[in-house]
């Protein structure tokens, strides 16, 4: 034969057994791994906007709390959930819809929640504070500004996204 190295019987057996073994191991493990990571690979639910009970004409410069409900599918569990937003018009007349979930550890913030800090959002849990536009006050615990909902006005009524989005920055 040529000067190419010949494969010995032992090597041949090793390769075949490792190949078959590897194939069988992969065949066993792959379905389980794919099974486990499914939540991360599922198509994003997409953001339907939800009608709130609030008319555009009712939105003022003063933040007001709006609750809105939608049906939520959590795996096999379906339920109606309520989201809340603080809604107002800023000086340019643009609508702002802020999430009330504190960016520190998730308590619920209130507009004018503390008499000592007028015209701010106040979190009672660890005294976190935010300006009217949601920016966190430096030196208080929150790690960032309040999340914002997407909104739309349809037939004079305020529609909000199911989830609020982070605004980034600190």
């Amino acid at each position, binding site marked *: 034969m040529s000067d190419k190295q010949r494969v010995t019987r032992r090597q041949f057996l090793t390769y075949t057994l490792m190949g078959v073994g590897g194939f069988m191991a992969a065949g066993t493990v792959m379905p389980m791994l794919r099974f*486990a*990571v499914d*939540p*991360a690979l599922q198509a*994003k*639910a997409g953001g339907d906007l939800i009608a709130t009970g609030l008319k555009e004409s009712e939105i003022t410069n003063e933040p007001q709390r709006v609750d809105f409900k939608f049906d*939520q599918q*959590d*795996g*096999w*569990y379906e339920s109606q959930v309520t989201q809340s937003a603080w809604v107002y018009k800023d000086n340019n007349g643009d609508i702002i819809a802020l999430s009330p979930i504190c960016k520190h*550890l*998730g308590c619920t913030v209130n507009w004018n929640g503390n008499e000592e800090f007028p015209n701010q959002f106040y979190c009672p849990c660890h005294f976190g504070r935010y300006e009217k536009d949601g920016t966190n006050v430096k030196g208080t615990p929150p790690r960032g500004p309040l999340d914002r909902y997407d909104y739309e006005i349809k037939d004079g009524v305020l529609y909000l996204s199911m*989830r609020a989005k982070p605004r980034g920055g600190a």
Partner: protein
Amino acid sequence: MLNKVYDWIDERLDITPLWRDIADHEVPEHVNPAHHFSAFVYCFGGLTFFVVVIQILSGMFLTMYYVPDIERAWESVYYLQNQVAFGQIVRGMHHWGASIVIVMMFLHTLRVFFQGAYKKPRELNWIVGVLIFFVMLGLGLTGYLLPWDMKALFATKVTLDIVQSTPLIGDVLKTLIAGDEYITGAQTLTRFFAIHVFFLPAVLLGLIGAHFLMIRKQGISGPL
């Protein structure tokens, strides 16, 4: 009677060398509190293992009543604690044991650290020990959600927030652990349950096995 049974089996299977190899060796004087009382510091490793055994046993019995479903988990824990005989004791064992095991592990680690027992040739066992530490934290973390009360829910939301703040892969990581991009709910509870009751205990037993094998092979480090 028992001796006869043992001899009957031993005659056929020769099991004596098996357990002799594992169990039959002297306790060195310097680790025996009967000789030097200060040697009690050597007990913390064994105490950690003892509590782990209690956690596994009480946990196995808890699952006879516990249901990992968001509508029923809390009710099932309430029921097993208040209606089932000795429910308060069994849940109490698991509840307090979860904290005590961390304390014992910490004391054991301190002893190893201050005696320098992690030095060559025992570096690998230090590493395995650190892995055990992480697995134990994981068990405490995933178990904490299971009663599905307010404290459990919000503690887990904070945990998931922390996970999500991981650079680059934070969002995916959170979804993987919570089972949903936004919701801390039905799928989070089943995932945590599976991890708490099957995955982590399996890993833990493997690591503890390696830990003990190495101790057996290398012996306990000498006196200071």
